[in-house]
């Protein structure tokens, strides 16, 4: 047998063995679901608001995994876009929302006007509204994601979306202006 033939045969054998191994591994260690969609879903704010045009965060995560744009999540805002860009290694784009990024909000039911129709209860994706038929409803502010899905179904328009009030507890330090941002006259004044 010529050495060339030996080499070819050896390589062929190696290929077959490796192929079989890989094939076995592909079946044996198959991962469930779409792992990248899961990771994308973990970065989305889970408001289930549908502002991205998909019925919830998971469908949007799957759409992103399938190649959709990453800038369609207004509740997530810039931070989510950055995180997604980092995860998927794509160029971050500006947020695709007419009003831009909104501060976090919370639903508030004007309780005097509530007629107890339970429509908002059914609309809330995270069960953050308590109440019963012909009983007053109220929002559990800590559970509210601010998705405003409850505003539309309310027949008496008694639900407001209020900006989340700042408290001493959630106040945060602002980053100082980076050095060199002062104009010369200010600098002279400051010194």
């Amino acid at each position, binding site marked *: 047998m010529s050495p060339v033939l030996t080499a070819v045969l050896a390589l062929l054998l190696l290929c077959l063995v490796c192929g079989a191994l890989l094939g076995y591994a592909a079946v044996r260690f198959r991962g469930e679901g779409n792992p990248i969609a899961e990771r994308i*879903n*973990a970065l*989305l*704010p*889970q*408001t*289930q608001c549908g502002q991205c045009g998909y019925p*919830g*965060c998971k469908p949007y995560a799957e759409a992103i995994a399938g190649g959709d744009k990453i800038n369609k999540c207004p509740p997530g805002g810039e*931070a989510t876009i950055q995180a997604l860009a980092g995860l998927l290694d794509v160029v971050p784009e500006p947020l695709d929302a007419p009003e831009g990024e909104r501060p976090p909000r919370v639903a508030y039911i004007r309780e005097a006007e509530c007629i107890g129709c339970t429509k908002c209860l059914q609309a809330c*994706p*995270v*069960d*953050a509204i308590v109440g019963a038929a012909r009983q007053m409803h109220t929002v559990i502010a800590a*559970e509210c*994601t601010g998705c405003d899905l409850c505003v539309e179904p309310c027949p008496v328009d008694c639900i407001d979306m209020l900006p989340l009030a*700042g*408290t*001493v*507890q*959630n*106040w*945060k*330090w*602002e*980053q*100082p*202006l*980076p*050095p*060199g941002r*002062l104009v010369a006259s*200010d*600098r002279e004044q*400051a*010194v």
Partner: protein
Amino acid sequence: MSDRQRLWDFHGGIHPPSCKAQSTRTPIQRAPLPRRLVLPLSQHVGSPAEPLVEVGQRVLKGQPIAAAGSLVSAPLHAPTSGSVSFVGPQPYPHVSGMLAPAIVIDSDGREEWIDLEPCVDYRALAPEVLLEKIRQAGISGLGGAGFPTAVKLAARPHDEKIHTLIVNGAECEPYITADDVLMRERAAELVSGIEIIAHLLGPERVLIGIEDDKPEAIAAVRTAVGERPYAVCAIPTKYPSGGERQLIQVLTGVEVPSGGLPTDIDMLCQNVGTCVAVHDAVILGRPLISRIVTLTGEALARPMNVEALLGTPVSELLSFAGLEPGKLDRLIMGGPMMGITLPAMDVPLIKTSNCLLAPTRSELPPPPPALPCIRCGACSDVCPASLLPQQLHYFALGHEHEQLRRHDLFDCIECGACAYVCPSNLPLVQYYRAAKAEIRELEHRQQKAEHSRQRFESRQERLRKAEELKEAERRARTERATRVKASQAESASVPHQPNTVASVPDKLAERQKKLKIEASMAQVALKKAEKQLALHATAELEIQVRDLRETAEAARKALEAAMQEAPPPLPSAAQPADDAVLKKAKIEAAMLRVQVRKLEKLEQPSAEQAAELERLRDQLAVIDRTLAAQSPAPVVRSEGEEALKKAKIELALRRSELKKAERAGTDEVERAPLRAALASAEQALHAAEEASGKPAPQLVRIDKRPIDETSRALKTELAYARADLHRLERKVDTDPAALDAARARLADIEHRLQAHTEADPKGD
């Protein structure tokens, strides 16, 4: 013990001018009682307390006014007697200048205490009771962060004992002398407090660390400690040796692990002020309602330390110390290194405020504008946590959170040493604070998102389950309905013939009936489904229709099979037993006749055919004979009978005519001829009857006599009762009592009707 205790050193540190002398010239003063006290519900880290009092309520000094909001929280007490004038947002000592919920007490100046429960022999108390006393006294760390002391004392991971108790009297930050004067003047209480904590924890050793620039304090504490096995250690003055981790390192040489707590290395650190508060709480029964605070700075005429009630407005304290407002540049709560600039002077004193610094502009000039980092590395040299401040600075600028974490941003104690030495005047600590806040916020958002996701998913799951349950119920309902129908078909026959012996044909008939019902039901269902399919053609419906068609087919086949087994019995039950045989014979005869006729039709029958014809004719004759023998003799209608029949028809016609006329409401004149015709028809019938020679029928009802009202009513009632009973029987879940009642009612009415008919037989 002695000061020969071995000491270690921590990395970095700075030596800023201490500026402590001016405020230690006088002993601790008592601040005048303010007219109004503002007590923020959030006095420390952990959750805010929850108010226990209402507006207008009178409170006594030391009375609890707010309870601990959660496990990591501490109650709040009224610092003086008076009345609650407001509960709501009030100024709060915070950089942001935001308001925070607070209880406002207007003092009445009487300083009436509640009944205190002093306890001389705390050793007799169980540790839990002792801990509860400390918890209820609302003590939180008085050094700086203000962690609730009871929580700190109770937290013992892995059930391991604290082997070293460290008492922090270092007080390294410039200007602040509150702990210094406390140790000088209240060394006995301090030692008593330490004893209580030591009793609670049972540590192997107790180390009291005091910086060596406080010789009076060291001397006082040493005297107070006396023969007790506590080591009073004079540690070298270096900022920030008062930091918990740094002090532990100086005193024991052990480093608290990154991200961990002193309890992880079985050590616990308590501030001297906290120890005194523990003494007050346990021995005197007094809750924490006041603290010692240093009032200092060149803008004050009389820098001093005062013992002030919590909630005292800062402005009142400053004016007590002789504030010269013109000189004041900015007001700092805490020290110059770690303190916060207060945006207003109306904020109250809280449990963590150890110093009010009122410097002049020249004393503490505002930081010059920041310049770009020159990477000199001075910050790294002084960092007591051995971090890389300039790296952190760059990562913070770029919001590189992952890198910040990797460089242990959260081990930064925000001591400000790096910013102090920075030649570019970079506000480094602010960068770290902002970065920490940003990361925490992101984490919080992440947690909230995860929480929302879980809630969303559990909601989806719940909705799905509800839908499934509904579907199952629907299925169960239809099943029950079919079962009910089947059982009804059975029970309909059972109660009606409990006395008769169920004969085989009866059973057969029953089965046939059932099959018939099933077949027709299947047919109906199929038709319905087909109609549906015609309206909206979906694959599901198609499948359904196919299934239904199969079922209907099967039902039809089963019915046919049953029918072939035996023909359904005729409605009349009084059939003669040999009826079937007779019929068979008749059919045979008819068939033979057909065959005979066929053969006869042949024009040229062969010999065989002729023989066959002969044979068939013979057979036919035989059968005919038997038939004639079996069946009653064929009725030969006589002329008379024919006439009778005609007469009967005539009578019926006349009668109906008369009735029609009556119904039409015609008058007597019109009805008379009809009546006459009826009478004549009757006469004719009688004549015909006589002529026919047939025996006159027993009952000759010439006219239908109207039944009397009572029996009609009874009959109607009977019908209703029967219908009711049937309806009740049809239902599955009928109350047996109701069923019995209906049966009784039916029997009663039957009985009455019978009695009535017997009593009044003219109805028949």
